[in-house]
């Protein structure tokens, strides 16, 4: 073909314009990644419901002799994590108006709430009195809550990076896709917790 004859480099420039329209590329990638995470937790929830469906009537729950699940603590953790989603969203609204000071504040608060959630969960684990090898309830309980906790930890790492980058002044009203991407991931982790909490603690 003769298309090499014209040495203009207009094509990449046009393409750049094309990429700028619609949702940012990074957000598309993050939403797709979250879709795969939904399927991952779908698989874990399937193990929970499968075990529960196969349990003899009246036997579902922590093993004999162990403490009961601490509903009060779980509600407190839920309140902490849902609040952290709200503080995250205040941060997003702040940076959309270009207010980096407020973004710093709200991100730090979100991070503190996330770490508080993780510490609370570890405390809960230490008090329960049964382990992952104590019957199928222990296995699905620790796997579901543990993998959720691992995702909270991943989100907290993301928030730390966002906080560091905010302090270096890397975000503005026009340029803050990374903040949006981490926030949508944080909201996702929150929604998963609501699912985990309702399934394990409320669905009796």
């Amino acid at each position: 073909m003769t298309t090499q004859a014209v040495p203009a480099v207009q094509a990449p420039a046009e393409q750049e314009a094309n990429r700028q329209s619609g949702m940012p590329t990074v957000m598309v990638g993050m939403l797709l990644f979250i879709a795969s995470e939904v399927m991952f937790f779908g698989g874990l929830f399937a193990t929970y419901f499968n075990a529960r469906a196969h349990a003899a009537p009246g036997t579902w729950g922590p093993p004999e002799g162990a403490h009961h699940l601490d509903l009060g603590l779980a509600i407190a953790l839920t309140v902490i994590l849902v609040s952290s989603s709200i503080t995250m969203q205040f941060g997003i609204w702040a940076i959309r108006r270009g207010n980096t000071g407020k973004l710093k504040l709200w991100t730090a608060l979100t991070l503190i709430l996330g770490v508080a959630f993780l510490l609370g969960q570890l405390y809960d684990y230490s008090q329960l009195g049964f382990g992952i090898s104590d019957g199928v309830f222990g296995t699905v309980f620790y796997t579901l809550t543990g993998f959720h906790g691992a995702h909270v930890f991943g989100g907290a790492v993301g928030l730390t990076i966002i906080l560091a980058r905010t302090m270096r002044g890397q975000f503005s009203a026009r340029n803050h896709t990374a903040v949006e991407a981490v926030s949508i991931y944080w909201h996702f982790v929150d929604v998963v917790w609501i699912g985990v909490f309702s399934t394990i603690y409320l669905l009796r």
Partner: protein
Amino acid sequence: MATTTLGPATGVSRRSWVMDWLTTVDHKKIGVLYIVNSFLFFFAAGILALVIRSELAVPGMQFLDHDTFDQAFTMHGTIMLFLFIIPVLSGFANFIVPLQLGAPDMAFPRINALSFWLLPLGGLLIFSGYLFGGAAAEGWTSYVPLSNRSPGVGTDLWLIGLTLVGTASILGAVNFITTIFKMRAPGMTLFRMPIFVWTVLVTAVLILLATPVLTAGLIALFIDRNYGGSFFDPSVGGNPILWQHLFWFFGHPEVYIVILPAMGVVSEVLPAFSRKPLFGYKAFVFATIGIGLLSFSVWAHHMFTTGAIFLPYFAFMTALIGIPTGVKMFNWLGTLWRGKLTFSAAMLFALGFISMFLIGGINGVMVAIPPVDFHLHDTYFVVAHLHYVFFGGSVFAVFAATYYWFPKMFGRKLNEPLGKIHFWIHFIGFNLAFFPMHELGLLGMPRRIADYDPNAGWTLLNSLSTVGAFMIAVSIIPFLVNIIATFINGEPAGDNPWDGTTLEWATTSPPPPYNFDRLPPIHSERPLFYLAHGDDHNPDGSDLDAEQAGGAA
């Protein structure tokens, strides 16, 4: 946020040749790395296949013990599927999809490099079981209760390796979907995308939604084996059938993950060597989407004999998949019909794909019928079926893609006579190796056995199959000679050796790091055809017009 760039730096690099390949984020180099890595694993798993066939050639234990035999077929299946067929097609997609879209690179070049480098790591972890007292030996499906009780670390390494390979696939899928939705050239609407891009898009969606479920299953099995978990242990409330559900919820879409891009390759090769556009472009696209949707509703047809599933539903949904697949058969036959056919090596492999995949489809529908499956489950009939689909289907398409796109990748054409010798030995060897397995299955020979009764009447068919397997191995010799000879002294290909009509043929062979100096106008799924011959909308094939100024949808 600038985590992505338009393309790699085009300036003079001072890095050494080795460092350049180790650190590259260029989709073309990563694509080549994928393909080379996949072929190395293909040869390793192929040697295991020869070991298996040698052991089975005649009754009696020849040179393996039972445990070694179990490890051989487990590694053969795992490596062929997860480290050859899936990644080699990803490799071609990596190289070709951005070119066919008129894009300078993938959407996330560094994540692209990560997806690749997880593969050799995962593959070597899976293989490393041989160094630590024996590799995994439960078959590529790793059913419990065998796999949650087997001693040794081989299965643990298998689980970790597959988790890494699965993660690589998921990241790759995110990258492909984002690239296809965000990186298309101006004028490249969805229904102007080449068929190969469409099949890669649907494949990526399947990977994205099916692979995480396998990951969940692998992690559950790992917890059962190492931390005293009881997901699959019925003595403390677990359920062994759950593993089969988790595995096949991924495992059946996985079949389409390996066949859809292969269909895409064939749908690029057939038009080029028939001198016709693909017959029924939109029908093909909707058939591809249909197969993708249906693939999530059929997983339990692998579990008919468990007695734990609703047979009529899964049998019906499985039969439904025959409809969009049949549509594609007519797409291909319609493309060939009254075409001006050239029987190049790529075309021969594409025609081989159509005929062999047809057999794999027909014997697949047979085992989709529950009463038939109750008879044939876990026999060699199933082995014949899956090899006609994976090998007669996907692997034939991999070779078609190799002969078709090699000139674009390296600027030289592979030798055609050697390619045809490769094809014919390969084709005859393939049928000799796998057609007798149908009969063996009907005679009742179970899969995964290392030895059989000399009086069972299976000896002749097994011997024939072994001869066929070695013919396939011999056919690889002209292929490798061809590759080496072409690198030394191959015929220069030029930009467009096959008179192709999609965008990858518009740039040089091999393409520059940034892919295109300038793009031709895109008014259809065959932009180069209209560039050469004009069309109603754009009679003189001239430059960008108002339609393109609007940008891609």
